[in-house]
């Protein structure tokens, strides 16, 4: 299962990373180098009863439906790149008319 330049470009697009074309061949090589070591896993017998690898936790992990909200020690404006009237601003989405105010 060798990674191709196409795969790396596709994955980079999914991850919103721009890859310098000059760097692409070496990245492909590095990723294949790493993934080559993963081949050993394929040879190991696993079955549903060996589990899904998630750690058993004793925690119930539920909270009750009440406040107060977790406070912020500093205003949002102190860490946000761009705000107006309480909104975070980002460059206008090219496809906004298609998606309405709803994310996909």
């Amino acid at each position, binding site marked *: 299962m060798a990674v191709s330049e196409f795969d790396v470009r596709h994955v980079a697009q999914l*991850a919103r990373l721009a890859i310098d074309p000059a760097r692409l061949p070496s990245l492909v090589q590095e990723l294949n180098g790493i993934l080559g070591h993963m081949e050993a896993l394929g040879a190991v017998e696993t079955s549903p009863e060996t589990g899904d690898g998630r750690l058993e936790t004793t925690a119930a992990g539920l909270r009750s439906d009440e406040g107060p909200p977790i406070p912020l020690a500093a205003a949002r404006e102190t860490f946000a790149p761009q705000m107006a009237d309480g909104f975070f601003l980002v460059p206008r989405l090219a496809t906004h008319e298609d998606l309405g105010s709803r994310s996909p």
Partner: protein
Amino acid sequence: MSLSARETADGVRSGQRTTRSVVEEVFRRADEVGAGKDGLNIVLHEDREASLREADLRDGKSGASYLVNPNARPLKGVPVYVKDNIATTTLRTTCGSRILADYVSPYDATVVARLRKAGALIVGKTNMDEFAMGSSTENSAYGPTKNPIDPTRVPGGSSGGSAAAVASGMVRIALGSETGGSVRQPASFCGIVGVKPTYGRVSRYGLVAFASSLDQVGVFGRTVDDAALGLQAIAGPDPRDATSSPIEPQAYHAAQHDSLEGLVIGRPREYFPDSLDPRIRDICDQAIERLKSLGAEVCDVSLPHTSLAIPVYYIVAPAEASSNLARFDGVRYGLRLSGDGLEGMYEATRSNGFGPEVTRRILLGTYVLSAGYYDAYYRKAMAIRGLIRRDFEQVFAAGVHVLLTPTAPTTAFKLGAISDPYEMYMSDIFTATANLAGIPGMSVPAGAVEGLPVGVQFLASHFDEYRMFVAAYALERAIAGGAV
């Protein structure tokens, strides 16, 4: 810092020392060793004036809490450095990354709040591999940290700054974090104690996530007792972390016993391969002899899936990281660089904000989760992770209390010596298993090879840090006493 954490707290509490004098000593020592950017490059952020003001404030109302409850401030006046991926409201939290260069968290991590409550002062934030991805602290956007014992060498990583802060005598306690050995391996490289608690023992709330199912805050101490006090202060359930355990922590500082009668120590053969540096093997075997002489029973055990830990780790950790690091998108905080529209902004911000190792792991993690590859990589790796955990469970169920292994396969290597990513990953070969299994682990200095420290590692069953500390205290004392 010559006084232990316990002595410092006692001294401040009794009025023999002021908090200001303690903090001044930290900064004096930091200047002496060259902790700044041009020197060992240990400290990324500090505000000395603010720290001294805080110290004065504490001194101004000294005694009161002690009179009410002597246990209320176990770290009263104790200065602590904190790894820069742990959120603090008082200093920046950059994670060693350009993408958070100017970020100040509007909330404190639970561990930071607990340290403050215990009376400790956060005197600075320490250098680290970017987003904790690395084993040498060379992957920091702010330059590598150098090992105080030999500045031509790495301190290990990713918590190299915190390890170096303790090793160079600036403080007795520092916080690091572990995803795959990032506290224990630098502790070994720097000749200090490093503890990775059980997954769920310490809250992750405020620890900037690298791989959520593996991450734990860890503690460095000059001595086992320093580490025990530090862990004691931060351990315990937290309603803000759904994976934190309701099991209450034990009193680790009470784990000092004269005899190890009844303690069963396992020596897992997979951690002593033929290829292991014989000098490191000898140090481990010497440690075993010392513990035996104190009454411990030692037996050979096997953890057959050990060799799969690194491949499993380097699928699971990057997969989770690729998702955890999606929030760094330039929208709400951190770096924002413009590009063509929104998509251009995303790409410009992330491509310039993340360094090469982080980029490599995001790509790797995105790949192993993507359609068509999930089953072969992520699902398979998680299933084998279950086998690795089962190996440990079986050994502990068979009556072994603590395992003893080398912490790292090498001593601190030269800066720039390792350029192949996978070769670097192998630095975690003996430590990543504990993160995958969720068990506690600890590195204790046990000797040196060519003047470079070597640590031995203790591993214990889930939530049984206490027995690990029993072995660690005993070994430390035996080595100090010179008895074999």
